């Protein structure tokens, strides 16, 4: 995980930042997600293609906490994002001016670190469920349910 780079799984995933919250839409599964706090920092790194090291560095620049604990929480979070297919391994490494830094705004004072969490919503998934087809005619067209 240390040297592996991840990117956001576009075009399946679209996202938007709106007042310190990131809304994420998965067009394939009909799920949608929300990130706040440290999750936003992680996501902003991933939007630039990032490794776990990049993400830990960014979190340490914004939040006060034990580096080992932050690293553990960040790794668990990346695993969750990958399980949800929101991120995928990056095929190409990012080209940056410095060796491995992502660009993250630094706060005036460090905030207290809270493990990142992913809020997942699945209430719209039934819109993507295929209706069972009762059969097709000889031309291959569905016979509508009566």
């Amino acid at each position: 995980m240390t040297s592996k780079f991840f990117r956001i799984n576009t075009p399946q995933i679209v996202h938007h930042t709106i007042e310190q919250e990131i809304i994420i839409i998965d067009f394939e599964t009909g799920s949608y997600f929300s990130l706040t706090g440290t999750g936003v920092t992680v996501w902003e790194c991933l939007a630039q293609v990032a490794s776990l090291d990049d993400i830990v560095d960014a979190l340490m620049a914004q939040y006060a906490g034990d580096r080992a604990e932050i690293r553990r929480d960040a790794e668990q979070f990346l695993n969750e994002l990958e399980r949800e297919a929101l991120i995928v391994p990056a095929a190409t490494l990012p080209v940056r001016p410095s060796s491995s830094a992502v660009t993250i705004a630094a706060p005036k004072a460090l905030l207290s670190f809270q493990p990142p969490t992913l809020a997942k919503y699945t209430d719209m998934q039934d819109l993507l469920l295929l209706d069972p087809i009762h059969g097709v005619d000889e031309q291959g067209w569905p016979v509508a349910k009566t």
Partner: protein
Amino acid sequence: MTGTRTDAAPRIFFEQVYGAFQRAEHGMGAPIQRDYAIDGFVVRLRFAGPALVPLITPALAHLEMPPDARRAALTICLWDSASTHTLMPPRPWAQDACRARGDVRGFNDTRSRTALAADVGAVSVLDLQENLGVYWIRAAEQLPTYERGAPLRVMLHWWMRERNRFLIHAGAVGLDDRGVLLIGKGGSGKSTACVAAALAGWQYVADDYCLLASNGEPYVHSLYNSAKLDDAALKNFPALVSVVRNPSERAAEKALLDLAQVPAAQLTRRLPLCALVLPRVTGQRDTRLAPIAPSQALRALAPSSLFQLPGTGPAEFFALANLAQQTPCYYLEAGVELSQIPQTLQAELFL
């Protein structure tokens, strides 16, 4: 039905379907055409025979215009096999090529759109270069009530989004030419709130689907003059029983209301938006409005708009995100006294 896909497959299929429509139209005698004004565009419906006319046109009647001799911006051809005795060409894709939202793998590209509504048994194809679409259903009477209340959504969505107009899942009502967008998934109370406002004399644009666009400020444009209410909601509006279009289907479907028949309802084509409102039923007596974060409004608005239609993508999502960010957002905590809904909206948003 070999499922063989080539780059020309979408275009070939479109030509086959349009050719079948032309044969159907020719076989049914004089062409039937209706023109509609939708946000500055002339949309022409061309029917092969009369079977689909009384099922498709009522919901659009408020937008109908006299026949326009000019070339329509978009022409949609509609036919059914049962009344025209004209077969649909064979399905050229494998059965598993149809995706969850109806778009067909390998039959959608920069010029062509193809979708199958498996529940309805209807096919929509659109040539974006020719601005020509064809809608086919096996038999006109198979068109369900929810389609009659909001016909041709997929076709209009495909074509309008190319012009930065997005078909969204929302209701819209207004006062003094300023509109409120009612957002939220099915069952949240959008239709009830919109109908309550319409009966109170508000301007009515939609209860479920409308077009979202911007001319520097966001606005919505009407598509359908209908509204749908379930039994429980309809009991609140006994005066509307006489305008139910589908009395014989009520056991299985929501009541489809023809608001064009309601004198108090001011059917309005277009309204600029001043607020996004997310209804939620409280069971309390009184109604109140409470501010919510734009992110909450976006979560209520975006998924149900994006996931219902094939071919939605970042353009729709970012249009909705911009709308939520630039427009005040509220919960409408709706009480059981429905008359308070328009009263509360008016008091909080328009005075």
